[in-house]
């Protein structure tokens, strides 16, 4: 085997391994052992750390309980970057139903579940390459935020919080 063949072998191997598919989850979901209130605080902090602004928080539980339906605490957090929302809504109005981004947060007893649509799962419906890149960026940010929620558990525990 000569050097040229070795280089070819290495390139083929590297390409095949780096193109392994990622985990294609349509709905990104994590569980936090923090309670609901702590999770809401951590989430909003992480969203802002990632360069987004929380636009508003929708309370889903109050409407339900107000009409007599039993539910635990449930919020939807809307967030985005102003310039990004403006640009994308002008260039791609078909994205508007997904703007701003949102994350659902709901209590399950003393723990909290945090979910979001994986923007990359929308990519198959949009042919434009610029959107595919955008979806991937959002996915990376959302995964990082959700990871923060889980790592926040560790931080809280280390700090002696409940």
């Amino acid at each position, binding site marked *: *085997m000569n050097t040229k063949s*070795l280089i070819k*072998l*290495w390139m083929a*191997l*590297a390409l095949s*391994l*780096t193109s392994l*598919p*990622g*985990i*294609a*989850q*349509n*709905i990104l979901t*994590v*569980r936090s052992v923090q309670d609901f209130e702590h999770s809401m605080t951590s989430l909003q902090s992480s969203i802002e750390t990632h360069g987004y*602004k*929380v636009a*508003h928080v*929708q309370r*889903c539980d109050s*409407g*339900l309980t107000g009409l007599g*339906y*039993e*539910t*635990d605490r*449930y*919020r*939807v957090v*809307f967030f*985005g*970057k*102003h310039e990004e*929302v*403006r640009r994308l*809504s002008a260039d791609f*109005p*078909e994205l*508007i*139903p*997904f703007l*701003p981004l*949102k*994350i*659902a*947060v*709901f209590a*399950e007893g003393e*723990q909290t*579940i945090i*979910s*979001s*649509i994986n923007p990359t*799962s*929308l990519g*198959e*419906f949009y042919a434009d390459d610029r959107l595919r890149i955008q979806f991937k960026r959002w996915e990376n940010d959302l995964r990082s935020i959700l990871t923060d929620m*889980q790592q926040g558990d560790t931080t809280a525990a280390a700090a002696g919080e409940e």
Partner: protein
Amino acid sequence: MKIRSIVIALIALACPPQLLAAPDGAALYETNCAACHQVNGGGIGLPLSASKLATVSDNYIKSTIRHGRVGRIMPAFPELSSAQVDAITAYIRNWSGVAGPQYPDTPLPGDRRRGGSLFKIYCSSCHSPDGSGEGLGTGVTYSRGRSFAVMPPAITNPGFLASASDHMIKRVIMLGRPGTAMKSFLDVGLRDNDFNDLVSYIRSFEARQRNPPPAVEEEAQKSPALMFDSPNDFATTIASIKSAIEGRNFRYLPDRHLEKGLADSSQVNRRQMTIRYCNFEQLYKMMRVEPRLGVGLPCRITVIEKDDGTVQLIAMNMRLIAQLFNNDQLLEYAEELHEIQLEIIDDAML
């Protein structure tokens, strides 16, 4: 010798580090499973209790991870390597420290027709006459009471049928699952040939599952946004949507400009208005079968006026977005909502 060393070194360079290390079952479980099954197998997913694990083989667990449960919340994980699936399985198995049972792969001979009659008598009251499960939801409760602590499995599900061997199904029917409503039918008085006939009938569901309906594929070709040009001006379009919503038993939430909250109010584009509404009865019904539904809430139609004066109505395609959840029950409800949404838009554009 030298060339071999170079090849090994190059392979090592090409491999991502996670492929070189043995998969960490605990970490993989935490990443892929714990959101629904909690760290100990509880949570909104089907409980991975010791009594359940005692009746299922490692192959069943691995195949379940690989195939999921089509149309239920449990997703398939085709991306995980065999070593990763093995690691998760070993991690789950270690909770009890007891090795799982092993079942032969050989099919059991049985009378399918007779099995169907037995199924109606002994099984259909929990698993429903068509074997699809109790009806609403999956796993354990989401902040509400349910008639079962654990939903009876959809034994028609292709993921279940691909994972469970005939001998495993037979054993579960014979001995039941302690701690659940699934009792021992040996105690009820059924005999060996009855079990074989029941298994034969359950296995016959497989043939009906081989070809998925084409509708899903057709839907996947459509856009996740419903977009229509309005024949009216911006203000009239908004008023028309509100009027159309009023007639359909929805409750308004305050209108919001799309950019509201992202910038000072003076900088917000006022020609992008979102009209938000909710039918709480419908919402409750849908959240019972899919607690993560909030990622698509609330119902809303956004009206935009473009620079050229064109006015458009834009809404989420609920029918298509619901497909992301891998939940057939949600699809049925989303279809209802989709039709109502289209009616509202139709009325608003008159």
